[in-house]
């Protein structure tokens, strides 16, 4: 979740906790509902593509344990094939199951299914969800061909797609900052190099910012600058499938200030690019996956760090907004269970847990 939203929740957390303390002194029968990320958070298990075995896990902070298969155990049906991400918004969990062309909406606490937004409603190949307000959300969608990317506007009462905004190829992450929505066009099955800016009041694109090749993730720092990480472009020789270095471009991490590219730091070589950029709760340290490890970089840096904070390859990365812990998902392969790790901000392992197949992300 972005910084703005976090601040709002933090305020309400404080407000409600004061209320709770005063109320609980009088009435123990109605405890305040857990706040986003306070009681626990979700771990998204992607599953093996084409194997229909994606699942959802939940980490309970108080018990310090993980519950697996929470979706299928609660709703008595399988979740589908290949979940790309999950976003928690307005006490609802939006699970984006890309290869099943649907978004499963669940109650954040009980995990019960509230709705399924599927192909009949207009969802084709969804990637990430962003809540704008309790009646509106945006979903990035790769389209049937993987290159005609759009942002679908979803009514969160009727769960129907009310508008479609064409954005670029392979739109991935999207964030909300300063009343504008930023969408990174990661290329999908083709390639792209833009971050588009949408005004959520009008659902119209107000700007398109050109960055490096295939930008895939976004984060906002304490100064209100937007960081973009991308993998670069790999071009293969059509006959022997070797990488054509001359036509390929390296990955990068870029900083946008006032909707303009202020700094671009290219990765040292092609075929390795920073991915899954996350910001810590203070908004001053960036974490991302890169070169088989997890790297930490201060927002003041102008070059990529040379040594990783955690020297191990992971499939999923997240940052706990409450504790600042670094959360990682490890996928030994796509046919056996993966592991979820909690690391301290100094890169020391705190605990590991067994989750589903290929944990790729977290939702708070």
């Amino acid at each position, binding site marked *: 979740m972005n910084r703005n939203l976090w601040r709002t929740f933090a305020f309400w957390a404080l407000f409600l906790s004061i209320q709770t303390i005063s109320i609980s002194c009088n009435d123990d029968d109605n405890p305040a509902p857990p706040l986003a990320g306070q009681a626990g958070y979700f771990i998204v298990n992607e599953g093996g593509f*084409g*194997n*229909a*075995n994606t*699942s959802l896990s939940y980490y309970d902070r108080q018990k310090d344990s993980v519950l*697996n298969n929470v979706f299928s155990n609660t709703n008595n*049906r*399988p*979740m*589908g*094939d290949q979940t790309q991400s999950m976003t928690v918004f307005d006490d609802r969990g939006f699970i984006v199951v890309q*290869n*099943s*062309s*649907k978004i499963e909406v669940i109650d954040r606490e009980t995990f019960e299914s509230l709705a*399924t937004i*599927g*192909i009949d409603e207009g*969802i*084709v*190949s969804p990637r990430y969800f962003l809540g704008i307000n309790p009646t509106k959300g945006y979903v990035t969608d790769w389209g*049937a*061909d*993987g290159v005609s990317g759009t942002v679908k506007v979803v009514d969160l009462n009727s769960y129907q797609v009310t508008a479609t905004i064409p954005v670029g190829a392979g739109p991935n992450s999207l964030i909300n900052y300063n009343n504008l929505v930023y969408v990174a066009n990661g290329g999908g*099955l083709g390639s792209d190099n833009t971050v588009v800016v949408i005004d959520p009041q009008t659902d119209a694109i107000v700007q398109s910012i050109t960055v490096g090749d295939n930008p895939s993730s976004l984060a906002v720092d304490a100064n209100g600058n937007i960081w973009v990480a991308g993998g670069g472009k790999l071009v*293969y020789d059509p*006959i*022997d*499938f070797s990488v054509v270095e001359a036509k390929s471009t390296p990955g990068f991490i870029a900083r946008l200030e006032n909707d303009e590219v202020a700094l671009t730091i290219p990765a040292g070589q092609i*075929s*390795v690019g920073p991915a899954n950029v996350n910001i810590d709760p203070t908004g001053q340290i960036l974490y991302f996956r890169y070169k*088989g490890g997890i790297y930490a970089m201060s927002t003041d840096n102008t070059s990529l760090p040379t040594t990783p904070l955690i020297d191990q*390859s992971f499939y999923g990365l997240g940052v706990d907004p409450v504790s600042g812990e670094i959360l990682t998902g490890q*996928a*030994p*392969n*796509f*046919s*056996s*269970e993966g592991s979820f790790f909690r690391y301290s901000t100094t890169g020391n392992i705190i605990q590991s847990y067994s989750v*589903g*197949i290929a944990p790729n992300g977290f939702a708070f």
Partner: protein
Amino acid sequence: MKGWRSYFSINLFSNRILSFGLALSIFCLAFLPAVGQLSSNDTVKVLQTVEITDSRLQLFSSGDQISKILPQATGYPASSNLSQLLMKYSAVNVRSYGISGLSTASLRGSGSNHTPVFWEGINLQSSMNGSLDLTLMPAFFLDEISLQHGSLGALYGAGTLGGAIHLGSAVQPTSGISGKLFQQLGSFGDRQTGVQLQYGNQRGAAQRSAVCVRAFYRQADNDFPYYNIYRVRPEQRQHAGINQKGILAEFYQKLSPQQNLEVKYWLQDNYVEIPGVAAAGISNQGTQTDLFHRMVAKWTLTNTNYQIHARTAILGHRLVYTDNVIENSLNEAISWISEVEGTFYFNEKQWLLVGNNHNYEQAEVSSYGAQLAQRHRTALFASYQAQFHERLEATVGLRETLIDGNWSPILPSLSLAYTAGEYWNLRTKVARSYNLPTFNDLYWSGVSRGNPNLQPESGWGADFGVEAQPEYNRWKLRGSFTTFSNWFNNWLQWVPQEGLGWSPVNVQRVWARGLEATANAQYEVNTDFFFRLWGLYSYTRSTKEEIKTGGNPAELHKQLIYTPVHQGKASALLHYHHWELGSTINIIGQQFTDDTNNQLLASYATTDISLAYHWQINDSHQLTVNSSLNNIFNHEYEVRRGFPMPGRNYQINLIYQFN
């Protein structure tokens, strides 16, 4: 496109491997006159009691468990495919991708490519991916289907870690013209037509020559309705159709009282739509065409004390795969297999088999990059059988292969068969087998890469079985109970690499063990009124006992995926005058769908019934109407996660035969 000639540009006598093979075969033939002089008895021993057409299967496998598939089949089995027959009537665990999807056989907890299919003694497995799609094998072309359980490396060479499926198409003894026509109509747009025409020339009791031509055409839409549990709505299965046409021509000629020649040519064209998982929102519209050419020529010489078989076969396969992303990926493979084997009879108690097999494989696949994959193999095998005290038969076998200049693991086998009583026998076998990496494993290029340094998978298997065949009054009973234990070393698995892509590694050691129990009962009032029952139960535990670097240690001691621990199958047949009522039931226990055994595929049971009426129009014309209702309880089930199977469905067959 290369022409056929370029494939045979080997200079015959400068190729060391080929000349080694030829020299060996000549050596065996030269050995014959000496053997003939050893025996003082002139009577024909080879053909007297039983016609030995396949020494390896009939004689030298006496210690093995062999199951014949067709006797317990109900309905009209010729209208099925090999996948359905093995699934319903054998201990094989058929792993399939749904009703028209790829099916492979896994026997005794072995891998999907460890039980090869042999047709007329020729191994049909693909050199590219090591498999043979059982769904594409029409039962109409097969007259004999036998399943041989256990490691068969000594007799049959590479790939036989779990067992082997032997298929035969036999030209029936016939005089004059005869023929058969069948037409099938079934649910979900299933139409099949088959034609068989035979001409035979007999002199006295001996068949002089015969020609048989069979052809079939099949079209099925497979658009069955089902409830999609992933997308939470009732749906109709899309894009799962299949279209096949094939012709099998067989020619038999008796060259002399002791020699005969058979030539067979099987041509088949298949078009399959690949539906993908039911959980996927958008189908990737994958389709695949497979064109097969299978030609075999067999020559047999039978003499008083020996029999020589020589066979040569050419197998061609052209596979084209297309989907939304990949355009017309062309994969072509050709194999040339030649074999000479001699069976020698020393006396009533001793037999010897010696043989040489030469196999040349070549594949041209766009995903191999610029490489042309090829492999030469030549093998020498021998088996010796001796009988002791009229009760114990011991068979010892040995096989060694030279593969592209490297020696393969040597494959010994020992089996014992003991006649314990009038109705009882015991048998046991210990043998070694191995499996070569496929061309895909060695040469694949792209983001995922093959590994040219792969070792062959190898393993030792042992089994022990008891068989009984008592008869009481009109009851004929037969039961067998076998326990087995197989170790597979250097089992290959594609594992993810640092960064992107996957690569195959000899990463694990698997131990498969369990038991198989079968029972047959037949009650005959007279030839017009009889009742048959068949049942099978198998218990299989197949777990990874060692995982090397590159693999995932969390998979240790876990059951292999898609390997059910329990399987139960049964069939019943009641024949009364012109009517025949049959029923089949299959109960497959739950299976794991992931390597760490956290996700399950539910167990399922399906029941089929069939009713047939046979009408003898006159002496030379007959008509049979056979109707089947499958999955009569409309059970909703999947055979693979994301691949639903149809509910209740029917089939009607009309079979017309003359002469």
